[in-house]
């Protein structure tokens, strides 16, 4: 079977969709973990609460993986029958991957910062955890919207 440039572009899109939000989430989760560790040295009982906050910036990585997976499924790489894609089809898929790739990367880091600040709330007023979560969730909205855009685009591309 002959490989086409379109296939390369499509796979490049899948790679970006997994890669960038994954980096962002790793960084975001890391930021929260650092401040959470500080709080837990004072009061180990707060581990569970801080863990919830730490999990929040992790979702972008999952959204990215999800988008990458949808691409892989659509171009048939999972079943082993790679579709013969034209260059334009490949570029369409690459374009569809961009929203979650970039918004995922940056929003995960921003969300990590918001959640890390939320850890401060847990340190002083653990009963107000819900408010800290809400602040972090406000950031995630944009990752969700980007995911939605990427997925809708992918479903719309005719192969």
């Amino acid at each position: 079977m002959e490989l086409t440039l379109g296939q390369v572009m499509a796979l490049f899109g899948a790679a970006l969709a997994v890669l960038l939000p994954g980096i962002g989430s790793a960084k975001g989760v890391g930021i929260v973990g650092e401040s959470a560790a500080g709080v837990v040295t004072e009061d180990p009982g707060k581990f569970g609460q801080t863990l919830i906050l730490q999990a929040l910036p992790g979702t972008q990585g999952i959204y990215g993986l999800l988008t990458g997976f949808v691409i892989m499924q659509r171009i048939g790489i999972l079943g082993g029958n790679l579709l013969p894609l034209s260059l334009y089809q490949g570029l369409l898929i690459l374009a569809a991957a961009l929203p979650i790739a970039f918004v995922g990367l940056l929003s995960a880091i921003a969300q990590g910062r918001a959640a890390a600040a939320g850890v401060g709330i847990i340190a002083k007023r653990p009963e107000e955890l819900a408010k800290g979560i809400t602040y972090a969730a406000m950031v995630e909205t944009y990752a969700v919207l980007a995911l939605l855009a990427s997925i809708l685009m992918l479903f719309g591309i005719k192969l």
Partner: protein
Amino acid sequence: MSIVKMKKMHLLGLKVEQDMILDAIYKMGTVEIVDITTQGQDNEVHQDRFHQKLEKELSELDSKLNRLKFAIDFLKPYVTEKNPLLYGKPKIKRQELDDLLSREEQYLRVVEVITELDQRLSRLKAEESKLHSRIEMLSPWKSLDIPLEEMGPTRETDFIPVVIPIKAFEGFRNGLDEKNVLFELVKIGESRDENLCLLVYYRAQKSEVQDVMKEFSVSIQEFPGLSGTPEEIIAGDERRLAEIERERQSIAGEARALSDQRFAFEVLYDYWSMVREKKRNMLKMTETSRTFCMTAWIPETMEQTLRQKIGKLTDSLYIEFSLPEEDDEIPVLLENPRLVQPFELITELYSLPDPKGIDPNIYMAPFYFIFFGMMVSDAGYGLVLALLTGLALWKLKLAGQGKKLVQLLFLGGVSTFMWGAIFGGWFGDLIKIKPIWINPLENPMAILVLSFAFGVIQIYTGLLLSAYKNIRAGRPADAFMDQGLWIVFLSGLIMLAFPQFGAVAKYVALAGALGLLLTQGRTQKNPLMKFLSGLLSLYGVTGYLSDVLSYSRLLALGLATGVIAVVINTMARLVGVNAIGFIIMVIIMIGGHIFNIAINTLGAYVHSSRLQYIEFFSKFYESGGRPFQPMRIKTNYVEFEEV
């Protein structure tokens, strides 16, 4: 259903009966006593006298409770007790409590013993760490075979232990040679970057030696108060460490022997905390030499019950109930049907409603229920979640917010199961059952429209509640202009999206817009400003638009769950080619789906809450209520059957 109506109770009674009356109120657990001592300064001196006595009693109680708590915590590692989450708190009969109280002196003496054990333990610990650091300091000097007390001057020479930086070692030796000092330098050992040596020199040359030492930053090692060779000292210290360990074992043995007393301490602790709670509330009352006076909040419905209960006890008291006044800070107690109660948690975590506002729970609950399920939307996951939380509710003795959370997750699981069946997701594509309605992966646009529809419905509900609030406050005109016109305008805009409505849509939208244009500037005086404010208010439509778009997360998170589940299944099937592969496949599936359930349940909880807080509550909700905290029996360890 709503915020419970509160009444203010004023009670004047005889002081000899204060305890009895307070006991009755305490057991009812529905009265919150208000601190009235700060109001009115009439008989201040008098108050002080009574309160000083109370405060003294309270501080004695505090110290007793602290000691009991300390003993309970100290004995904790030595007892195995049934998990109260599984078995509930042990029940104590009045008789048992009286028995314990009559032997209280005895138990308090045991507490003293335990305090002593603890002090011995901490002394041992201090000594142990001292020994450890001495051993660490002496170990490098181990091969020095001269007793330390013999260091120092002989008739003609000085024997001194010195610490030389490794880099300066040769330099130091050469430096001494150059000054023609008569010396002997013996290397004893080394630490990280220093050589430890014994230096012997002719005392007449001491000043030269000191110069060279300064030049190469060589320092003298002091061994204050030590005698014997380092090796002997270390051996002695190690013997002592072993002894300490034995002593510690014996203390642990003593503690274990006392551990059966822990239960008595727990009972006493809970009993005295109850007494403390009562006394603290007495501090909030005013008194004369024979009478006391208290003010308290009580739910309206409890008024008769309280009258009867207290009336049975005594005739010599005056009791009066009044409606709250304008500037009273009324505490908030919510009352909802059982099915809605779990959702109160979501509101409580945000903020309780204003006492004069609306209890949002009953309106919010159906939305939360629907949204939670839609975001997870896998029938298999719903079953797992509902079964696990159902089991927890059945087997565990939960209370308070923890119970509400588990109940909420149970309802969420039910909703998830229903949505999963509608969308045809059973652990992703593991079990292939046809969707009742539609598969979101095949037709995401339909679900997107459904999500927006839910958003519109919830936002309309919010607007209607806000209108209701205006009408209730006697401002029907405001309700029409601020909410009614918006609903007309927004409905017109929505109708534009459906060609069936044709030209009507345009006119409805225009009528709404015109209405808003004319009414929204009504607080302005200047006619031009009136017009401009009206025009500007139309910009609010972007707010509503972004609110509705925000509901697209219902689709996005639902898709995320479904696709991740498919990913897990696909990865697992890749390895399931032979017997060993099959086992790995099952492990991947179980682990993967558990992970997916956990992460998506968290996501669904967070995002459903967010939709309520930001999109729904912002339309009508007034927060800022203070929770009703009645004086009631709260125990840590045991439950009293009758007190």
